[in-house]
């Protein structure tokens, strides 16, 4: 009958929790601590049927409060984390990991390493197997810290090396770290996932020791194995590696293809276009045009002078050669309704001219070709440029006069 509003333990704690959440959202750490103090007795109840039990809630909320509260210190934080580790054996490794992350954020690398080693040696019956994923992560992070140590040793060695001294002890230590790091890093990147930092470090190690084949294999796996989630960075890493290795343009181009599909606005698209433009294959040049046009669809590229210069160069070359105007026509077709307002307004003409003359030059060239020399943008910039007696603008004007009807063929 009237039992819905009866105040009982459960309702009281639910209300308490909502007060805590409100306080957290408003960053009122003292108030959150006040209510959490009242909430902790929930631990004495068994909530095995609940989705998230009080011990997990207390762990997460307590962490937040202790991390942000002005009067809290790392010592207290660590003490709290140790208590949380004993609370739920099913969460043990997760709590360890989060603790380690906090230590790293606080710059306590050594403590983090100690905790990682400790966690790695943890065994608890069948739980060890169940928490296998967390264990792998712990090992991976230890590998990462080993890499970091290796890197430090390497720098020491390089510095000393300049003086002509070679410190054997340092070198051996360095190799030791390498071995430890390599083992763990290799393991984690086998599992499908996003492991950017681990991959980078591992590849760095491999390259240093000259194992380029392994490095290439790792990067290929990371980029092309369909089990791994689509990750633009994977392709970027591969491309950078291949570039370092001095690979052919062909393989460099093929490395960037998928990146273009996933992230058409990536900054590497400029490099991509530059390579494609110079290609002997018609298909590749065609692709290059598409790539640069697509990149400039994005607001982030609006003021990218380099991108505009790529486009300008390519369309100018096409216009001069009088071949493949249909390429431009095709690209312009889907853009002619909105690019004028997006890129070539009078307002932008003024602004570009004021802020970046090179940018306005390149854009004006493109505008003239696509919209004709009477379009707002070209008129303004060209006029300003000639007024300022800048040579290239005069050249531009002449060029446009010669090809003044091209735009009709493009838009018609």
């Amino acid at each position: 009958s009237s039992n819905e509003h009866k105040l009982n333990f459960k309702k009281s704690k639910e209300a308490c929790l909502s007060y805590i959440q409100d306080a957290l959202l408003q960053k009122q750490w003292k108030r959150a601590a006040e209510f959490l103090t009242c909430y902790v007795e929930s631990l004495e109840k068994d909530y095995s049927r609940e989705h998230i039990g009080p011990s997990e809630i207390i762990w997460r909320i307590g962490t937040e409060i202790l991390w942000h509260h002005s009067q809290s210190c790392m010592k207290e934080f660590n003490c709290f984390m140790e208590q949380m580790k004993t609370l739920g054996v099913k969460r043990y490794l997760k709590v360890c990991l989060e603790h380690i992350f906090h230590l790293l954020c606080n710059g306590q690398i050594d403590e983090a390493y100690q905790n990682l080693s400790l966690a790695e040696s943890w065994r608890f019956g069948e739980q060890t197997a169940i928490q296998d994923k967390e264990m792998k992560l712990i090992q991976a992070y230890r590998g990462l810290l080993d890499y970091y140590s290796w890197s430090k040793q390497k720098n020491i060695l390089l510095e000393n090396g300049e003086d002509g001294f070679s410190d054997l002890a340092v070198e051996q230590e360095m190799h030791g770290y390498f071995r430890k790091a390599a083992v763990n890093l290799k393991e984690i990147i086998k599992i499908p996932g996003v492991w950017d930092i681990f991959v980078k470090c591992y590849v760095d190690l491999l390259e240093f020791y000259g194992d380029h084949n392994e490095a290439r294999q790792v990067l290929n796996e990371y980029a092309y194995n369909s089990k791994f989630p689509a990750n633009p960075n994977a392709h970027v890493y591969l491309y950078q590696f291949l570039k370092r290795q001095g690979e052919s343009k062909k393989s460099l181009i093929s490395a960037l293809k998928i990146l273009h599909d996933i992230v058409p606005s990536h900054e590497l698209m400029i490099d991509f276009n530059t390579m494609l433009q110079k290609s002997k294959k018609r298909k590749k040049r065609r692709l290059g045009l598409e790539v640069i046009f697509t990149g400039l669809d994005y607001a982030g590229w609006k003021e990218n002078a380099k991108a505009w210069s790529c486009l300008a160069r390519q369309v100018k070359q096409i216009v001069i050669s009088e071949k493949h105007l249909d390429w431009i026509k095709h690209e312009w077709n889907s853009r002619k309704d909105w690019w004028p307002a997006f890129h070539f307004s009078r307002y932008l003409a003024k602004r570009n001219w004021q802020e970046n003359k090179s940018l306005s030059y390149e854009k004006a060239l493109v505008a003239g070709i696509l919209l004709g020399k009477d379009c707002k943008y070209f008129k303004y910039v060209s006029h300003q440029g000639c007024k300022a007696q800048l040579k290239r603008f005069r050249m531009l004007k002449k060029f446009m006069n010669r090809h003044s009807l091209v735009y009709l063929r493009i838009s018609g």
Partner: protein
Amino acid sequence: RDFNERCAQCSEVNWGLTDGGGFYCRTCHNVIERTREVVNTDFITNSRVQTISKGSKKQEKTDGGCEWYICEGFQLVLKKQVEALEALGVCPQMKDEILCNFWRCYLQKSKQAYCQRPAAETVKALSVCESSTDVDSDPERPSLLHLLSLSESEGDLQTDCSFASSVSKVSESTSVYSGSVDGSLYIMKNQKEKLRMTMPMTLSFCYMALLWMREPITLSEFLRFVVEGHIPYLNVFQHFPEKMKLCGLDLKIFCVESWPVYEEVFNKMHELAAFLDLPRFPDITESCFLHPDMLCMKYLMEANLPDELHNWTCRVVKKIGIGEVDFLTLMPGNKSTRKVKHDVLAAAVIIVVLKLLFLLDDHYEWLLSEFAEERNKNNTEGGPYFEFKKWYEVVKHVLDVEQKKLDEERAKYLWRCEKPLFYSVKKKSKVLKRRQMVVNLQNQFGKLAGSVQRAEKPNPSSFQLSWSEENTDGSCFHGHSLKGVLQEKRGLLTAMNPDYWLCTVKLCNEKLCGHLAHYKDVEFPQSYHFVLGLFSFLLRIQPSYIHDEVCMIEHKLFNKKLYKKLKYNTVLRK
């Protein structure tokens, strides 16, 4: 005293007690093995209340505990509660004479003591618990899960899966099931027959005694004191002596995790009074605190309303006869009269009076307020006229603040206490570890909570809101005049307001749906909601209960008019 067996040696029935608590025959001084049940004198103050006779076993168990029965536990609880009431100023007579006798009467009627106990019942229970080593083998013996599910308490103790799963591993004796001797039996008993004792019922007992003594404390106040911690209830078992070990099913009986509501305690009290065959309670007369005239005065003050309204509440009370002794006094077992909730009744009377004078239709009261405001501005001599608007603003503000405080307090309530509880000895270490961790965390985060420390229990006070006439900001309305809403007609003061709206035209049948009217289903004016909300806060009960009383009063008040209308309607139909 109740032991009637013949002495083996001399065949007489003339028993006495040795110092050690053993029985001896006064005729031939034969000492037998039967010992008086260990009743620690700590349990009861009144030495007249004696043994709870039973077949007895060894006095002390190996773990330092003793055998104890559930009703002994409840006796202790009641003792603590009544002592707390005494500390609050209740007459000491209540403990020694009234409550004690009620309790004894209850024990007798429920056949737990002071009678020829059906020994067969106990013996069976004990033997069942002792004999079998394998829990699941005996199909007759109720499984622990079954016992758990029987109890109506809704605590999370029931969902303690880890406990339930450990049942199958149990192979020991009674100590696992309960620290008390008859814990499992208690839960199994058919509740309807004998009015089984529960923790909420202890409050009913107390209130029954208070009512009998006509102490100046209403049920809502009493329950508020309980929640505020002035009357032991929540963790009262921590005052049990060390020897009385609580575990297993005892927890289900003595550990509560919710506050009982007014209705629950109220209804149980009436059931109890009937069960105990009590006679008519002492009369509640006009000079009694519980009389609506008195309570109205108190509530008017607390609600910051003008004293002049008291004339009106008295008039209403008189007119509908709810000030009559026979109406107000409890006659147990009388099913035909509606049970009187003195506090709710008084609050409802005030609301009806407000409706009479101010209509409370979200228009008229503001209109009247404007007139009063005008008058107050222009004419500062003589007392101020009561302005509904000002009153509303002042009271609403304070109410909002207090409600917010109350909500926060409810969220911050600490339910656990120092004394750890565990189902079985096996769980003990885990429970103690958890408790330690909780205490550690409380310390750690308590320090970070800043200067906001948990305040000491505030002293219990009868008034939750107080208004001082000395305040120069005019926030106290006690002395304000009602002249603005009254007029003189034929020498009598009547309300200027000619209208009245009924909360409901037809009263529902309380026995069918539990309510006289349905507050939530209908849309009422905001002002009405507000005054209901105000008294709902003061009495700590749901507004719908006050609403029911308001409906009841209205129907009594306008009885003739309603009757006429009904009659008229039936005439038409013909």
